[in-house]
């Protein structure tokens, strides 16, 4: 009995100390966590400066900007949401917003930021405006372009076919690669989309009410695009290890001056600077196939605010702070994307040839389809591309199988 009393006493004391300490605890200091995508060109110094500057202005708020590589962002975000522990804010690919809405995971960001901040953002970049509400502020929006290493070639191709011919010439006559083409699955389907859109393709048929219908990835445009990609590999104009290269591994081959062409985003200039590239670059439109107009891919990324986050008001304060020119324009300059804010777009640093090409590309660019389950569809189409590259299926067979699998997901 004595031992029982001793144990009881110990447990009571422990419980009392917990209660006491809980009672004495100071009110929780708001902490805003931001999942911060590591764009090429974005520096650690900028992240730290931004974090410190915000906390200096708002000493009662802790800001934790968590750097996350792009190819891990989707997994990290969905894992944190599934675990019931979302950040306050996260940079997302805007196409993810449909899934986040399906999960009921996001809050309308327009309810938490100043009207002045909203008014300073170009309406055309507000891709996350769905069902009458803005679910994410655009953080980067840019069409993809063609970068040409002038030490290797000065030819600006008017069609995909011309680009292939010049790439063949480069790889036969020099010890350089004609073209960069990542062949390994990564987060996005960009590398297929360049050719697919250039052949006039669309991922889905659009029904009369504007909703998506059956998959069109196996349309003549899809087959033409994939056959062309397979042919480029057979021509040996791309690095021989392309099958093992994601975008992150493939692009440095261009930065080191070893390839003539690369289809790339606006970050190319800052990435080249950081890599110390010593060659001149021409920027041009991604060409269409013969008989087709140029139709580059445009990608927007947004900052979403999460419904179950604890400190949404404080997160709104951070957004207002971040969207000031002092920070946002610097951010845009580092990542190389054209500004999404009206005031930053007027700054002299955004009046260069690169931004002129980007603006021209944006005028006729096509975005990703905004459809639930696109992450799984991306995986399916990537696998089809891999099967074609590996010669295990013809491009037509691979894309027919992919279209069937995609239609199963969408229920068509």
């Amino acid at each position, binding site marked *: 009995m004595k031992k029982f009393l001793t144990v009881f006493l110990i447990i009571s004391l422990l419980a009392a100390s917990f209660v006491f300490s809980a009672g004495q605890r100071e009110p929780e200091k708001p902490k805003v966590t931001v999942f911060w995508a590591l764009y090429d060109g974005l520096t650690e110094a900028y992240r730290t400066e931004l974090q410190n500057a915000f906390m200096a202005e708002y000493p009662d708020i802790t800001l934790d900007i968590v750097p996350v590589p792009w190819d891990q962002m*989707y997994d990290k975000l969905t894992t944190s949401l*599934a675990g019931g522990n979302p950040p306050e804010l996260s940079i997302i690919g805007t196409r993810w917003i449909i899934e986040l809405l399906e*999960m009921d995971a996001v809050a309308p960001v327009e309810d938490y930021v100043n009207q002045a901040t909203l008014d300073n953002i170009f309406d055309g970049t507000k891709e996350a405006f769905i069902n009458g509400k803005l679910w994410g502020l655009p953080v980067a929006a840019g069409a993809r372009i063609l970068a040409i290493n002038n030490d290797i070639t000065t030819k600006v191709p008017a069609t995909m076919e011309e680009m292939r011919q010049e790439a063949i010439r480069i790889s036969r006559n020099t010890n350089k690669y004609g073209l960069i083409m990542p062949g390994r699955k990564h987060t996005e389907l960009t590398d297929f989309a360049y050719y697919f859109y250039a052949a006039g393709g669309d991922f889905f048929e659009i029904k009369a009410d504007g909703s998506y219908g059956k998959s069109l990835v196996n349309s003549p445009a899809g087959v033409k695009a994939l056959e062309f990609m397979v042919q480029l590999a057979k021509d040996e104009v791309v690095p021989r290890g392309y*099958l*093992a290269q994601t975008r992150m591994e493939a692009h440095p081959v261009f930065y080191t001056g070893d390839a003539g062409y690369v289809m790339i985003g606006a970050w190319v200039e800052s990435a080249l600077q950081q890599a110390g590239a010593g060659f001149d670059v021409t920027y041009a439109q991604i060409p269409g196939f013969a008989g087709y107009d140029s139709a580059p891919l445009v990608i927007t990324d947004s900052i979403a605010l999460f419904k179950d986050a604890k400190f949404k008001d404080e997160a709104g304060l951070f957004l207002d702070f971040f969207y000031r020119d002092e920070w946002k324009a610097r951010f845009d300059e580092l990542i190389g994307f054209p500004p999404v804010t009206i005031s930053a777009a007027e700054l002299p640093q955004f009046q260069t040839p690169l931004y002129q090409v980007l603006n021209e590309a944006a005028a006729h660019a096509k975005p990703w389809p905004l459809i639930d389950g696109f992450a799984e569809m991306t*995986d399916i189409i990537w696998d089809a591309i891999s099967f074609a590259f590996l010669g295990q299926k013809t491009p037509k067979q691979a894309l027919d199988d992919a279209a069937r699998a995609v239609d199963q997901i969408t229920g068509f």
Partner: protein
Amino acid sequence: MEKGKIRRISGDAWMAYALLTPAVLFFVIFMFYPIIYVIMMSLYQTNRLGILMNFTGLDNFIRVMQQETFWAVTGRSFVWTILAVIVKTVLGMIIALCLNVEFLGRKTARMLFIIPWASSVPISSMLWRWVYDHEFGLLNQTLISLGITQNPPVWLGTPIWAFISCIWVDIWIGIPFMALVFLAGMQSVSKDLYESASVDGVNAAGKFFYITLPSIKQIIFIATLLSSLWTFNDFNTIYILTRGGPAGSTDILITAIYKSGFEWLRFSDAAVMAVVTFIILMVFSLFYAKMYFKGDEAL
């Protein structure tokens, strides 16, 4: 305990229960509850956050098992585990035998040898990803500069080489554990046995097969069982090296579970595969243990 009497719990027992309570609570909250929840997810339709919606019974199991990819990844998981564990066991044994012999610098060799196992798996896998890189990787540069080939394979880009490359990294990380455990076992074997065998004219192979192996049989059993469980569930190596590609050719059950759950948000499908994995490993462990004890009785 006498018949008809209710046993009183003594003060010592109370103390024991009280001290065990935190551990039991920890086990229930962090082990038992997640397992039950995963089993429930496999029997329910879930939303994209993994919340249970409608009870569907075994429908999820039927749907998942009708998919070709499920059987492909399950089969690959077995090939992956069997190959890796066999190689780790054989190489681990050879290295343990080498390290059990007196030679100058043996202590340093043992310390160096543990590095792959002491490093974290993600770091080791990242390191190997660089080694395998086609353009800038150490492996291809070495093969080319030694004149072995001017056309090295794309290690992580073709199905067969990607699978072999992943297995090799798993083996590279796992060998030190096997070797050290075997070495510890070998050092506990009495030297008198070897001396007696020498007197009787038994050669080195005979000593190994008739003295060393039987003496460390229990250790081999535990090491191979643990290695099998770890290898079957080795997510990091494959995810970092290939993410299951190219075209799913290096996907095993554990990576398929992750993709299904956290990339495609199909939590029910992921739960089905997790339950299947749980059953496979449970049955394997019980069968393996039964075989072991049966063999032990026969001796």
